[in-house]
């Protein structure tokens, strides 16, 4: 990578080390630091520029998936939002688009994410809390009112019932006169990390994997520009994993999805180009940059060498990023603006395709409109003012960044090979292996914080007397009652015989393993069957996942 006389360098490095070891002895040791204190060409010996880095837009994509990256267009500034009713969330979406947001990202409440209607007793207290409540196509029509689905790209954080929400989106678009082939967006649709880290699963792995491959197949033919899955490390990291574990476990999940789709008879190049990823942007800027670069290289090798994909689009790890929610502090929340700015720098230097920035008040509640604006402005400042987006992959060639990229790649391969030996990600999750690895890292982190081996400003050092934070967003408690009333009206108004017929057809389809369920779900949605009714049919046939609890 650069000219250096290795022998002379090794000798000078030894002299340097000998000298500094003595003087450093009087400083207290800080843990959790990189292996070396200084990186030199010795740390990247053997790196072959053309083979290991290459050019952006070319295999193995270490330097980015697009040839020109942010010189042609910035990343999509996509703010995750949604709370209360469809009416309230629609207002927030329109505000974000008017403020310069360039894509939508929908947060659904927990009953929606787990396939229950708002009037189900289990939904009591949760309706509209962590996202918007969607019970039927009628809510979805309100959610996207006056938003042209032919122009906007929409990401939906929905997993177990992803097929149902995607069907609702397609149906709303049709009502707007937008055909499915014109739609752009993403469904998260990543059930494996729900079992391992996020918790909003419904069905057991086998039918869940079937639903996912049904979506791959349906979209490859009907909704060709839709990202059919967002294979997510974000939540694995939030649950406490390290950077290497984040990409390793997620790519292992990705391998499981590709395997399942190939087993179901799909051609890898027909669906692989629509797979996307979701990374966390943590505080350690340089480690994160290396993580992004390493992840692209690992996935490219997996797709080309392991699965024999031939279309370069199938080799690309395209990624959405969110700044780390778990790194926000409830103490001195103003400081979170700085944390988010550093995390944004990491994501941009890492070459993300889209980004959500968290708001300073999110360790306390859902964000207010004002704090969301600062979070969006943070992205705009990094894009337009900081210079970080001016050239492609600007940190390449740094001895440290390249050495760290290699190191994270190596650790990821070690985990992937261990998971392969167990029989793949599904088995590793069923055995609780991935969960235990994450828990172990989370516990170590917490103990490091409590022993002050890790300093979190305002939490375990530099504390002040705190005043209670005022002006937090509160979700109106009446939203549950409002959704119940809307549902009662819907059930009285719709053609219930038609609903029953569509649900019966779906039930028959569920029992036939060769049927693709997407058209049947779309039919049910269009007849205004509710999310809870549709998921209820699938629960009846597929059963529910039972988590293994281990400490």
């Amino acid at each position, binding site marked *: 990578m650069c000219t250096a006389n290795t022998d002379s360098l090794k000798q000078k490095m030894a002299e340097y080390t000998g000298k500094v070891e003595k003087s450093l002895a009087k400083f207290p040791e800080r843990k959790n630091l990189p292996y070396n204190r200084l990186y030199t060409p010795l740390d990247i010996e053997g790196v072959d520029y053309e083979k290991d880095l290459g050019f952006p837009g070319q295999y193995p994509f270490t330097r980015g998936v697009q040839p020109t990256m942010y010189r042609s267009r910035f990343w999509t500034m996509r703010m995750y939002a949604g709370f209360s009713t469809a009416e309230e969330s629609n207002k927030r979406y329109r505000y974000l688009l008017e403020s310069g947001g360039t894509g939508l990202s929908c947060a659904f409440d927990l009953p929606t994410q*787990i396939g229950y209607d708002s009037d189900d007793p289990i939904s009591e207290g949760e309706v509209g809390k962590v996202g918007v409540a969607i019970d039927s196509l009628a809510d979805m029509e309100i959610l996207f009112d006056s938003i042209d689905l032919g122009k906007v790209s929409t990401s939906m954080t929905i997993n177990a019932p992803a097929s149902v929400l995607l069907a609702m989106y397609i149906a709303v678009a049709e009502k707007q006169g937008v055909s499915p082939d014109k739609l752009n967006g993403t469904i998260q649709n990543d059930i494996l990390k729900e079992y391992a880290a996020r918790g909003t699963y419904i069905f057991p792995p086998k039918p869940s994997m079937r639903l996912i491959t049904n979506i791959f197949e349906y979209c490859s033919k009907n909704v060709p520009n839709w990202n059919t899955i967002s294979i997510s490390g974000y939540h694995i990291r939030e649950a406490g994993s390290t950077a290497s574990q984040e990409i390793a476990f997620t790519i292992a999940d990705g391998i499981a999805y590709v395997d399942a789709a190939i087993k179901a008879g799909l051609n890898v190049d027909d669906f692989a180009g629509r797979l996307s990823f979701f990374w966390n942007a943590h505080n350690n800027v340089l480690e994160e940059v290396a993580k992004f670069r390493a992840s692209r290289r690992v996935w490219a090798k997996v797709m080309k060498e392991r699965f024999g994909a031939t279309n370069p689009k199938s080799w690309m790890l395209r990624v959405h990023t969110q700044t780390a929610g778990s790194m926000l502090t409830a103490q001195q929340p103003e400081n979170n603006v700085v944390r988010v700015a550093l995390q944004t720098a990491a994501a941009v230097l890492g070459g993300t395709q889209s980004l959500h920035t968290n708001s300073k008040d999110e360790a306390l509640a859902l964000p207010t409109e004002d704090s969301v604006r600062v979070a969006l402005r943070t992205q705009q400042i990094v894009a337009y003012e900081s210079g970080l987006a001016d050239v492609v992959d600007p940190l390449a060639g740094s001895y440290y960044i390249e050495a760290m990229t290699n190191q994270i790649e190596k650790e990821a391969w070690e985990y992937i090979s261990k998971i392969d030996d167990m029989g793949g990600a599904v088995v590793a999750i069923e055995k609780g292996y991935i969960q235990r690895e994450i828990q172990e890292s989370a516990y170590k982190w917490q103990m490091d914080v409590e022993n002050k081996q890790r300093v979190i400003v305002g939490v375990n050092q530099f504390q002040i007397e705190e005043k209670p934070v005022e002006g937090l967003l509160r979700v109106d408690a009446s939203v549950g009652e409002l959704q119940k009333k809307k549902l009662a009206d819907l059930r009285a108004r719709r053609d219930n015989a038609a609903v029953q017929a569509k649900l019966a057809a779906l039930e028959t389809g569920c029992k036939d393993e060769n049927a693709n369920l997407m058209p049947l779900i779309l039919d049910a949605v269009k007849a205004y069957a509710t999310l809870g009714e549709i998921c209820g049919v699938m629960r009846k046939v597929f059963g529910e996942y039972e988590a293994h609890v281990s400490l």
Partner: protein
Amino acid sequence: MEKRIRVLVAKPGLDGHDRGAKVVARALRDAGFEVIYTGLRQTPEQIVEAALQEDVNVVALSLLSGAHNHLFPKIVELSKQKGMSDVLIVGGGVIPDADIPGLKAAGVSEVFTPGTPTSSIVEFIKANVK
């Protein structure tokens, strides 16, 4: 020999965030308590039943979804109905300061918010267990 303190760590409601619950459970175990963890998605009825069956001294609730004002008081109420007035009930999670007085009035003994060291939870339980 002194009887070990038994704690049920529980996740009420539909919230899937269990990093905190698991870290606290392990820290309590390392502090010498006997710990039972319920896993996700427990109804108030299931939690109170488990507390009764396991004969615990403490129920530690973890919730980050914002449904605490609904679910925590319900669990306290049900445990009173079952005659479990000697069980200490504590909670934690993303809970705004403004909600804490109401939860305490409803019978939750203490609420631990983000950034609390696990050692504070251990100390509180040791000092207040009935």
